């Protein structure tokens, strides 16, 4: 009972829920595979990124809460890889068989988180981006198994976000060095998250994700949703965020050239160098960030050895 792309597009726009790979048209399957791969890789690569900072968290309690978050991210990744496996991909190959540059997570998860402030802002910003994207998927997706899986994900990502907010509030209230470190984290991570939402709508290439009802909102709409909660949060905490509400157009507007270049060594956005093209952004993304290989290797390190042990081959 396979459909053509056009038939399935019409059906899902009419509320049809797809339940099995046998019903998918080639275009649908391809768009869903891309979406799930990005989702799975993003969850997976957040784990090493968070762990590098979590291990040096200031206390036992903070190490516990940070590890709880990492555990959730790994579970979410695992769930998304299972969904991929159920539509014909191989989890083994996706997690353990790819080179670092082949993963499809955002550039932000190729960066080092250097301290506890970076980690809680990652919870406040990156996880908020995650929940912004996934809530939209949850509300709109035409793929039944994904919608069901996102119930757990949504619940847990909300917890991460609250963790980020609570700690940002605490560090801000502490003032002094704590607040300065917090502001430094905001300075590099705010534009990083804004960029994560991708190409502006007027330049967006056609991906089919909206046509197949795999998501509901456009990149720019999602970026606005994220800013609508992030900018007021920063203002509330006395933190400078480079965006403001524009009354006339009723939208958030960035106070810096977008997109612009990023110097990963100093963790600084080169705002003074002005706006760059999206081709330049894609080139930077494609080159991956400084932690890409370390993060991927940290996840893959024991698999082949233990796999050998259990597969009966003599080492």
């Amino acid at each position, binding site marked *: 009972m396979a459909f053509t792309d056009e038939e399935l597009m019409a059906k899902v726009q009419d509320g049809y829920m797809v339940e099995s790979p046998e019903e998918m048209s080639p275009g649908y399957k391809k768009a869903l595979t891309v979406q799930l791969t990005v989702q799975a890789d993003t969850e997976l690569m957040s*784990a090493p990124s968070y762990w590098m900072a979590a291990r040096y968290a200031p*206390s036992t309690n903070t*190490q516990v809460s940070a*590890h709880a978050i990492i*555990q959730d991210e*790994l579970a979410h990744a695992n769930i998304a890889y299972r969904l991929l496996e159920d539509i014909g991909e191989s989890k083994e190959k996706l997690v353990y068989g790819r080179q670092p540059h082949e993963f499809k997570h955002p550039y932000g998860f190729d960066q080092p988180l250097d301290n506890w402030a970076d980690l809680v802002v990652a919870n406040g910003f990156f996880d908020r981006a995650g929940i912004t994207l996934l809530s939209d998927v949850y509300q709109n997706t035409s793929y039944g198994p994904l919608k069901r899986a996102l119930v757990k994900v949504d619940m847990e990502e909300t917890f991460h976000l609250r963790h980020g907010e609570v700690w940002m509030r*605490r560090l801000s209230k502490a003032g002094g060095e704590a607040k300065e470190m917090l502001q430094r984290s905001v300075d590099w991570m705010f534009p990083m998250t804004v960029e994560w939402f991708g190409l502006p709508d007027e330049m967006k290439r056609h991906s089919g994700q909206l046509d197949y009802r795999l998501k509901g909102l456009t990149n720019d709409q999602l970026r606005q949703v994220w800013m609508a909660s992030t900018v007021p949060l920063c203002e509330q905490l006395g933190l400078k965020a480079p965006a403001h509400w524009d009354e006339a157009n009723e939208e958030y507007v960035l106070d810096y050239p977008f997109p612009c270049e990023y110097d990963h060594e100093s963790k600084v956005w080169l705002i003074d160098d002005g706006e760059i093209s999206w081709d330049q952004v894609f080139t930077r993304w494609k080159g991956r960030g400084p932690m890409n290989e370390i993060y991927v290797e940290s996840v893959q390190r024991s698999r082949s050895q233990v796999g050998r042990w*259990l597969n009966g081959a003599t080492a």
Partner: protein
Amino acid sequence: MSDFVDVSDLSDDTRAALRRHIISLADTKRFMGIRYSDWLLGAPTLETCIAASSMAQDEWGHARLLYAMLKDLGEDPTAVEHDRADDEFANVSALDEPLPDWAAVIAAMVLVDGAITAALESFAEGRFESATSRGPKMILEEEFHRSLGDAWYRRLADSTSEEARDLLAAATRSMLSVTLAWLGAADSEARALVEAGIIGDPKAAVDSYRERVGPLVALAGIELDEVQPAQEWDSRRGRAPGQPDADSCERVRGDRNRALFVE
């Protein structure tokens, strides 16, 4: 029950012994958690990564409960948790260094985590009220660590890979000699605790531990009777001489983010 010890009635020596015991258990849990955390990314499947992360949290939750028992002795645990020098940590020495491979992680899950549980059982059945009230829940949570460790231990012991079996046997031998000495310690501090009824006879704890791990380690070709408990002992801390690696001590104290310690 009125059968609990009144801490203020204990002699100075017994109080000091109780303090040493609490810290040794708490530190061992704290470092066990560090060793699980070390593997939460590199474990062989995502499911085992998730389990490692969860077990690290369990250990740290238990460590906090144990450190908090110092309050019964009139001591604020904050300094113990955050300000001790590397050579003051009292964890069982098998956890001093990162575990080098998955076979060592599994051996530690069975032998070291198992030894802490055996020690906790003895503590929870004694006359120190906090241990009797908090111990059982910790012991219950350890059930999952035990089933996971046992299942993987059997797999690796059964492996046709000589490398897997050799690594498992080597890790088992070296950990066993340390855990047997730690669990069976009968120095004057341990004897004082036994006399006060705070812990049971260390021999009994060792016996129950041997009964539990004996059949497993036999699968790796190890006869328990052949393993000698390590001889070297530091009675100040209640563990073998030596200290954990510097990076792990930093993590345990939270040194790098001290400026952000604003709980």
